[in-house]
């Protein structure tokens, strides 16, 4: 048994929040390793507080540990103080369950949810004692595997990783485990042969089997296989039925503080609202609802097992779940919950119906309400296809104030395509009117306006759009700040526009960015998600040293037929659908939600022979909600649901 616990223990007395490194969570297991077993180390490349709640890694660890031929443990990026201690003591990155060195695992699987964690990915590989470049590693090293939303353009990290997994991981993790198991039991001989076999698994991309070529003008020409066995194009994986995967079955309950410290139950995956800025909504199609009965069971079992008094029903737009009212009422009214359990819906829709549910579920403890209108004018919201009318927002806000809420948070993006200063300032206008509505109910209502700079993402209609410069974003923030000052009750918060530059680089960058990431990491640029650690100067310097232009990668509009770094990777969406949607955006034409309107063939269903799984073919009541249908707003519409059996709408 190899454990570094006895060497680690004295170091823990010297660092901040040592409870992050002990494991011991309720629900965690102590796997028994064996020479014939495939071992995975699941890693979130940020702190324990951010990484532990990640449901994706918990789901995959459980699935692996249920297999007779494999074991899985977890790890997170140690904070800077412990990293210094580890390096000084010559100790490696370790697993939390058995405090085993990361380098002793067969695979290190990273979840990549944010581009700014890329230098932490590199740091974790190095701290495990491995060469950071895939090309310099051999059969004695673990395979570096990455999954998560960022991997829809993995080219900036292609130099560092061995395998990239696109899409849902539930099925593919078993297939990878089986192939690696065969290879391990056969003596870990031919690594190239292993990669070829892995590349045959649908959803698995092996970057080392491909090469990007660039023209004399420095523009990407193509990314093509250099091995005849590797496929030209890698399709994402999609599980057809979420009901077959009731994971995590034993959600981990940490013993120390983390974000989202509550029971989480995923109620559906995918979203077809079609917001054009939203990568998650585009790459996770189609919509697959979990059966309402299973949701209720998972909530009841989870609360009993964990002792939590809060459950989040998670998805990209939870109020859209067909059985939402019924499920919520079931939890709130369950006598076993003593009236002490509150439910949260992390992505609230903007309408009064939703507020009605919120009032129902926050009887035990009332937190703030958050809405995301995303843009300040109707014109702008048509461009981004977030078809919320002003009356939807005001109806929601009035409903909230009248039911006792005093504080509200509104989320907006700036730097959207075709945005004018009038659109930008429309944000403050909306907020001002919300405060005015509040004054009818309370003395000092407040609205917090939270501003993010828009970063165009791959596999969305906005993938061709040239991002605003950080100077332009800062100018817009200043406009908003000056406008907000005039109105009492409107409070402004914003994301650092400088960080958006690096997010933009990583979001749509190509393989040449690998050298940039490595240099920033070498110069100490880890934890770039953390404002106290973020260093734009390191990135700009590394870009210059690599002979690359920020303008070319971030600020430039792409051309219709220009090769893109992710052209060989597919989320199922037809390129001509995305291009048409981009043209529609510029023409300010909205596109309805295809759950409730005819299919417009984006490619996500037809390409994979799967369908939306929704229990109701009727759109939810309240507000226009981008359906293009004339629904009454104001929360007075009763919810009528057809019998709860899955209906395929494609």
């Amino acid at each position: 048994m190899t454990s570094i616990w006895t060497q680690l223990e004295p170091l823990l007395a010297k660092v901040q929040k040592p409870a992050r490194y002990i494991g011991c969570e309720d629900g965690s297991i102590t796997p028994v390793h064996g020479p014939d077993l495939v071992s995975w180390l699941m890693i979130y490349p940020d702190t324990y507080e951010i990484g532990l709640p990640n449901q994706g890694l918990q789901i995959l660890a459980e699935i692996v540990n249920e297999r007779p031929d494999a074991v899985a443990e977890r790890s997170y990026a140690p904070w800077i103080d412990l990293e210094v201690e580890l390096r000084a003591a010559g100790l490696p990155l370790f697993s939390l369950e058995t405090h085993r060195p990361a380098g002793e695992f067969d695979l290190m699987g990273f979840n990549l949810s944010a581009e700014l964690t890329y230098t932490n990915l590199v740091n974790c590989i190095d701290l495990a004692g491995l060469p950071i470049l895939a090309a310099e590693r051999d059969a004695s090293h673990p395979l570096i595997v990455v999954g998560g939303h960022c991997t829809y353009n993995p080219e900036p990290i292609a130099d560092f990783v061995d395998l990239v997994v696109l899409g849902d991981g539930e099925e593919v993790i078993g297939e990878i485990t089986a192939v690696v198991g065969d290879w391990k039991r056969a003596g870990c001989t031919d690594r190239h042969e292993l990669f070829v076999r892995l590349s045959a698994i649908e959803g698995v991309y092996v970057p080392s089997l491909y090469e990007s070529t660039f023209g004399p003008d420095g523009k990407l020409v193509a990314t093509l296989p250099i091995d005849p066995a590797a496929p030209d194009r890698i399709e994402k994986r999609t599980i057809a039925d979420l009901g077959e995967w009731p994971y995590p079955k034993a959600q981990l309950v940490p013993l120390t503080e983390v974000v989202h410290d509550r029971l989480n139950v995923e109620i559906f995956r995918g979203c077809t609202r079609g917001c054009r800025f939203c990568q998650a909504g585009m790459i996770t199609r189609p919509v697959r609802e979990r059966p309402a009965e299973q949701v209720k069971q998972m909530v009841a079992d989870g609360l009993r097992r964990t002792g939590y008094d809060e459950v989040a029903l998670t998805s990209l737009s939870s109020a859209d779940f067909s059985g939402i009212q019924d499920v919520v009422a079931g939890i709130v009214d369950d006598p076993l919950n003593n009236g002490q359990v509150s439910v949260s819906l992390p992505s609230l829709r903007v309408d009064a119906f939703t507020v009605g549910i919120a009032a129902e579920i926050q009887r035990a403890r009332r937190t703030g309400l958050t809405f995301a209108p995303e843009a300040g004018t109707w014109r702008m919201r048509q461009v981004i296809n977030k078809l919320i009318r002003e009356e939807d927002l005001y109806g929601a806000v009035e409903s909230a104030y009248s039911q006792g809420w005093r504080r509200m948070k509104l989320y907006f993006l700036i730097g959207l395509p075709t945005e004018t200063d009038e659109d930008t300032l429309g944000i403050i206008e909306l907020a001002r009117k919300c405060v005015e509505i509040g004054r009818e109910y309370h003395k000092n209502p407040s609205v917090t306006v939270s501003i993010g700079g828009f970063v165009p993402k791959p596999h969305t209609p906005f993938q061709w759009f040239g991002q605003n410069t950080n100077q332009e974003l800062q100018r817009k923030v200043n406009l908003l700040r000056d406008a907000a000052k005039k109105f009492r009750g409107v409070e402004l918060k914003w994301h650092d526009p400088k960080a958006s530059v690096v997010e933009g680089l990583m979001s749509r960058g190509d393989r040449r960015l690998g050298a940039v990431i490595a240099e920033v990491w070498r110069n100490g640029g880890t934890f770039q998600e953390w404002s106290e650690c973020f260093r734009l100067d390191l990135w700009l310097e590394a870009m210059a040293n690599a002979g690359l232009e920020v303008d070319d990668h971030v600020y430039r509009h792409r051309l219709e037929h220009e090769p893109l770094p992710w052209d060989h990777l597919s989320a199922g969406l037809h390129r001509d659908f995305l291009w048409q949607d981009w043209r529609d955006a510029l023409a300010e034409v909205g596109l309805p939600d295809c759950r409730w309107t005819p299919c417009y063939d984006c490619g996500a269903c037809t390409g994979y022979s799967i369908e939306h799984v929704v229990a109701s073919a009727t759109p939810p009541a309240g507000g226009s909600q981008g359906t293009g249908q004339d629904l009454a707003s104001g929360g007075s519409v009763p919810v009528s649901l057809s019998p709860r059996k899955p209906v395929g709408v494609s």
Partner: protein
Amino acid sequence: MTPTEPRPTRIRLRYTKLGKVRFLSHRDVASVWERVIRRARLPIAYSEGFSPRPRMHFGLALSVAHESVDEYIDIDLRDEVSLDGLADQLSELLPHGIDVLAVAEIARSAESLQGEVDQVTWQFTMPGVSTVELTDRVAEWLARESVDVSIIRKGKPTTADVRAVVDELLVVEPTDDDDDATPAGARLVAVMSTRPRSIRPAEFLASFDPPLVEGRVRRLAQIILTDGVAGSPLPTPHPTSALPVSG
């Protein structure tokens, strides 16, 4: 049969904090208890108001990384519960290293644990220090009239005489029943008064010249003096099955 009126009660539990969980903060331990009480379905009372909180009360704080075999929590219940088997039931639900050793009902008007405790017994295990060396240093320390150290209380620096609050100081031999996780090394036991004010273990160790290394710190007992006689915050516990660790 008429339903009996609920009888609000307060119970006090003695528990351990040993091994890896010694790295939990006071606040972490409070959340762990909150969840375990809900899982055990104890009818805990909630505070009134906009954001009701479960009514639990803890004793003297224990620093992160220090262990204890004598921690206390008071829990207010809406109604009485059977205490038979409760200690074992809770230990089963609590993380490894936190075990309930004893439980008893106490008066709802009982003084707060923090105000009641007069003395704390600490054990210091110092890897790399020999018993002979430690014995010499302790004798020298005890011979001093007063040992003033600079401490910080409520953000302000002040001076305290550590010698005056150390009631007993003994170098002891390590015992056989120690868990494997405790490192080998010379061992010191100190009985320290909480009045006029508590001196923290780290401050006590720093009062030696040169300072003693911290090693492993474990609280062995919290003591209430009644007419000079030492007693426990839980004098007559409800009978329980085998105790996981003896205090």
